[in-house]
């Protein structure tokens, strides 16, 4: 039974779209710093990149708080169940108009692939970018003899790891944006991420026990 469900809460959407904006902006300014192209000039690119990085760090702190206080972090616990089915779905099922192998609900928003990829972002790629980014900004101080605790002799490894992370994020964004079109209609998922409401195939039992979150159509 299809039910219109309030699945993405307001903070979640705010966090998602601000993070999306910041990551795109960081990619744009970051690859300009990397001399991949020229847009606003090196000086402005550095300034805005540093500024946006602080904005992202602040956002991440709020997001971590939100994930733990709401228990939403559980959504990212990886599972082996249905992972093969999910992969098979993208390789063959999707072309045959087969149903999604996993059901989306308020308590199980992500399919097993999403769980692994998003968890990877949260515990690997983004932390690596934040740590290398902070080192990138502060590595000169030890050279000036001010902080002996993090004595970084050069930028090369930091910069290369940061670049690898950036490529990974861009590739993720491409795949992520594309996969939003694999819902019932191409724009359904994006609409849901904007409004918070999505039409979900509901399990009778589940909706009975969690009736508060669902609204019968």
């Amino acid at each position, binding site marked *: 039974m299809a039910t219109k469900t309030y699945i993405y809460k*307001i903070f979640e*959407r*705010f966090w998602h*779209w*601000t993070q999306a*904006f*910041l990551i795109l902006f960081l990619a744009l300014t970051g690859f300009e*710093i*990397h*001399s991949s192209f020229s847009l606003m*000039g*090196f*000086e402005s690119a*550095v*300034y*805005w990149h*540093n*500024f*946006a990085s602080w*904005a992202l760090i602040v956002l991440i702190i709020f997001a971590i708080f939100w994930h733990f206080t709401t228990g939403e972090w559980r959504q990212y616990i990886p599972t082996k169940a249905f992972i093969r089915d999910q992969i098979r779905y*993208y390789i063959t099922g*999707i*072309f*045959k*108009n087969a149903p999604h192998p996993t059901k989306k609900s308020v308590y199980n928003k992500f399919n097993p692939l999403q769980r692994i990829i998003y968890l990877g972002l949260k515990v690997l790629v983004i932390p690596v970018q934040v740590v290398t980014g902070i080192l990138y900004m502060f590595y*000169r*101080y030890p*050279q*000036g*003899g001010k902080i002996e605790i993090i004595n970084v*002799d*050069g*930028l*090369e490894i930091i*910069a*290369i790891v940061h*670049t*690898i992370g*950036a*490529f*990974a994020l*861009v*590739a993720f964004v*491409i*795949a992520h944006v*594309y996969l939003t*079109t*694999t819902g019932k209609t191409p724009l359904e998922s994006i609409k849901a991420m*904007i*409004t*918070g409401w999505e039409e979900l195939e509901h399990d009778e039992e589940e909706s009975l026990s969690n009736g508060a979150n669902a609204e019968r159509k």
Partner: protein
Amino acid sequence: MRRKLIPFLIIVIVPQIFLAIAILSKSDGDGATQIEELKQRVLSKPQKAVDHGQFAELHKDFKTPQEVTAACLACHTGRAKEVMSTHHWLWERESFIEGRGVVSLGKKNLLNNYCTGIRSSEGSCNKCHAGFGWGDKSFDFTNELNVDCIVCHDNTETYEKASGGSGYPYMEGPLKPDYKHITANIGKPTKYNCGYCHFYSAGGNNIKHGHLEEALLDCSRDVDVHMTTEGMDMSCTDCHETKNHVMNGRYYGTASNDYNRATCEQCHGDFPHEKSILNEHSIKVTCQACHIPVYAKVNSTKMYWDWSTATGMRDGQPYEETDSLGNKTYQSIKGTAQWANNVKPEYAWFNGQANHTLITDSLTEFPVKINTLYGEYNDPTAKIWPVKIHRGKQPMDKNYKRLLQAKLWDDEKNKGALWVDFNWEEALKEGMEYIEVPYSGEWEFVETEMYLPISHMVSPKESTVSCNECHTRENSRLAGLTDFYLPGRDRNKTVDLAGTLIIVLSMLGVMGHGALRVLASKKRKEQQQNL
């Protein structure tokens, strides 16, 4: 509808708030207060306390310059002793150089990449010695009366030292100094006094340094923000502060150790910028590297000096060739020269310590580095300096692999001086005999280079080197300094290739997958219709 609108607005507006905060927090200050304070400090110089013109001791008919010195010392007791302990008098100083130990080096005994060295040509070169009579090795460095007070303290701009006069002024004739006039107008050294020697080193205006020249006497703000007559009109001694005749500041090309130097920081401090990212650069980059984008802004400077073509004759006579700007591109006495204007400096790591190729050193590396600036990225005391690298060719002993000193000048013919007799064989023999260093008699020309850090001709802040002149993939100003990772210039090619590939493959992947989905759904629709 309202329920959707508010979150949507938040989503749109919040990023804009971030942008607005960023724009507002961007500082637009320029350290104006600090500059204002510095200006006041420079302006509040003490006025001249006495009128030397009223002193009976100076109302004499001075016959020799030594008599003037004696008159100076009659009141200014002990000052000659001070001068005689400085580099302006000694032209050498004790230095510690790694691998050599303590050595006494200076213009007195070093080789350079211009006229190559003073030894055996003192009569001409030592016009710029702050004394009288250093014409050869026999000069008495302990005679106070030989100290030339006037050359630095004459404020009339009329005092002339004689060409080939071993530091003496003209002793007779129209250029003989008017001592009465000069002694009545004695004062602190001006730009003119310092420039009398330092602008004309290596035989003419701006030849050697490229950033010290007579244009600084009256220049626009674009040429030098400190010395401009449109602005502060600062004199050399405003920065090169002096105590007991010891000038603060030493020439990097001949100084080996890092002390007693004049720095930008002595007035401007270590962190003069409003933007901390610029201050952070000062840990690895000198002020000069960004604030002197070009040198030789007015007159040309000599970039290349090839001695191997010297002694050429035209119709049996020595000759000269000049370019359209009047620069001498060929001289029989000096060989071929290349000049340049508005030169972008080259850049080098430098920690203040330098080495020099001595005439007794066996050469192993070519081109020969007349001086070596020490420093590298991993040296916490080293910074990136703008340098003029002056290149050329000099004679070398073929068998001993040592640089040679030719005798260049003499006031008589047939004394072996290159500039008089135009004979390399004789000039080298004479020069090496004078220095008493063995010479095999066989010689050839080798390529040489000398590193001259640049500190003058500071540009207005509007024309400083911009970020992307260094932080750029192609033609970075720092292209030559490869021992560190510079953002914007450097990258790991494998990572970039793999990263680009992954992005391209992702794009192709999603496009292919999408296209297949469209095709599949079309097919399904057709099949449904067919059913």
